[in-house]
């Protein structure tokens, strides 16, 4: 794993935005981070530390105000389907059915209808929503909505999957289930994942590495290897002494920052 090439590199990345009150706010300040190809990397940190801001910069929906942010050696300029983004509150198009949502990216790529419905149907089935193709999002539970959002993102097959607290709005049981399913999907089709979360256990369970951010303005405080290179991901690790130690180590790093902020 440590041998693999760098997919995304942030060097001294900072972001200043203008608040609704007109003041300029420094959200993140000098983030240095290398994300390796096909790695699952989580970012944890206190609320408001700029974790999501960093993710939106990688997605290209916000612009970097300082430093360098690069994917595959080229500076990131604007959003694109090579970097899929999944939100905490799903961001499904409410006026489109499940099928319509999953097909959206494929429509934009100009795929002919039979092909896109075929591919969408496959993914909808894969996330366990077969039979719900013609239902509108407001009739689905939170977990189902997030499955649709995941299927919509996987449909256009991005190289990088950016996830902004995707399970943060779900109940505890659904959350555990979705974590398992995400790991399964990730091992089926390798992708580079950057995963934002508040939940240290979730981060340790899912990730190869966990980056801890400082309180605002956020920087990377420490990066912890959470999965030995080459070892498999799975629920069985959760009971091990090693897992518990990693969780405690990361939590104590986060706690110091929460106290500061």
């Amino acid at each position, binding site marked *: 794993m440590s041998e693999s090439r760098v997919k995304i590199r942030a060097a001294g990345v900072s972001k200043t935005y203008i608040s609704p009150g007109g003041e300029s706010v420094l959200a993140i300040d000098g983030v240095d981070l290398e994300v390796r190809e096909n790695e699952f990397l989580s970012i944890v940190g206190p609320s408001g530390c700029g974790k999501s801001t960093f993710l*939106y910069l990688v*997605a*290209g*929906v916000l612009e970097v105000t300082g430093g360098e942010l690069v994917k595959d050696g080229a500076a990131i300029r*604007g*959003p*694109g*389907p090579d*970097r*899929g*983004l999944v*939100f905490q*509150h799903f*961001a499904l*198009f*409410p*006026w*489109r*059915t499940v099928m319509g949502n999953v097909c*959206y*990216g494929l429509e*934009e*790529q100009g795929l002919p209808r039979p092909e896109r419905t075929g591919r969408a149907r496959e993914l909808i089935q894969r996330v366990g929503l077969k*039979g*719900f*193709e*013609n*239902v*509108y*999002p*407001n*009739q*689905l*539970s939170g977990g*189902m909505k997030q499955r649709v959002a995941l299927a919509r993102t996987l449909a*256009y097959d991005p190289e990088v999957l950016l996830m902004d607290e995707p399970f943060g709005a779900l109940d505890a049981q659904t959350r555990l289930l979705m974590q398992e399913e995400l790991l399964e999907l990730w091992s089926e089709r390798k992708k580079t994942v950057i995963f934002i979360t508040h939940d240290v256990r979730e981060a340790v369970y899912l990730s190869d590495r966990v980056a801890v951010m400082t309180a605002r303005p956020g920087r990377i405080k420490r990066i912890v290897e959470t999965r030995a290179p080459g070892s498999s991901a799975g629920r069985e690790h959760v009971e091990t002494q090693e897992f518990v130690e990693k969780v405690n180590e990361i939590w104590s790093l986060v706690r110091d920052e929460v106290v500061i902020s």
Partner: protein
Amino acid sequence: MVAGAGRSGHLVGERRSPAQVLFLGKYSPLAYMIAAWELATAAGLIPELLLPRFSDVMAAWARMMLSGELPEHALSSIWREAAGFSSSVVFGITVGIAMARFRVLRDLFEPLLRLLFPLPKSALIPILIVWLGIGHLSKIAVIFLGCILPVIVSSFNGARGVDRHLVWSALIMGTGKRKLLWRVIIPGALPDILSGTRLALAVSFVLLVGSEMLAGNTGLGFLTYFLSEAGDLAGMFAAIFTLTLLGFLADRLYLRFMRRILIWQREDQE
């Protein structure tokens, strides 16, 4: 709570008959009120000079329908209403969304809109008559000016209120800046646009009748005023009855149209 598969196609057909039953049930109190009206006037409790008998109103309505008097005035009103309302919707939506997207237009129009919003549009009727005459045009202009503001404001708010995460999702999936308008902004603004437009529909009838009463010699508003001056109260109520019917039908049709478009908002499509 969660819907089963593939049944959105045949909802309308299934819903119709219970809805009709509900419709009759909901409006049945009207029958008692009409009966009370008829009895009170027939018994002489209310002098017929103030309130004609319901049966006389209906007789006058039938007579005026057959003579062609009501249809003629109604057609004239319907034409003004349709022209004024639909042009305000088309312009209003365009201006509102353009203001939401382009800062220059927002800065240009916002002070004007703020100033015009509290102005009762009926105050413009006299000057529009001076400018545009007593025919169709002045009435259409009054309706247009009165309706366009709620349409602009609701379209503007709707377009500005579209969740930025939806916009981001679309941009990421490859939607261009121009196509974004049709793919995300307009569908996202639609619930607001449609409720602002419904408000405009109600306003339009007020202005229609008001402008017809002030000048001209056609339209149901003119007819109502003319017959009341002439002392034909039964005829006047027949004209009012026709106006009520038109307003009611317009609103029902509009609601049906709105529900059909916003089918995705329904919690249960049962």
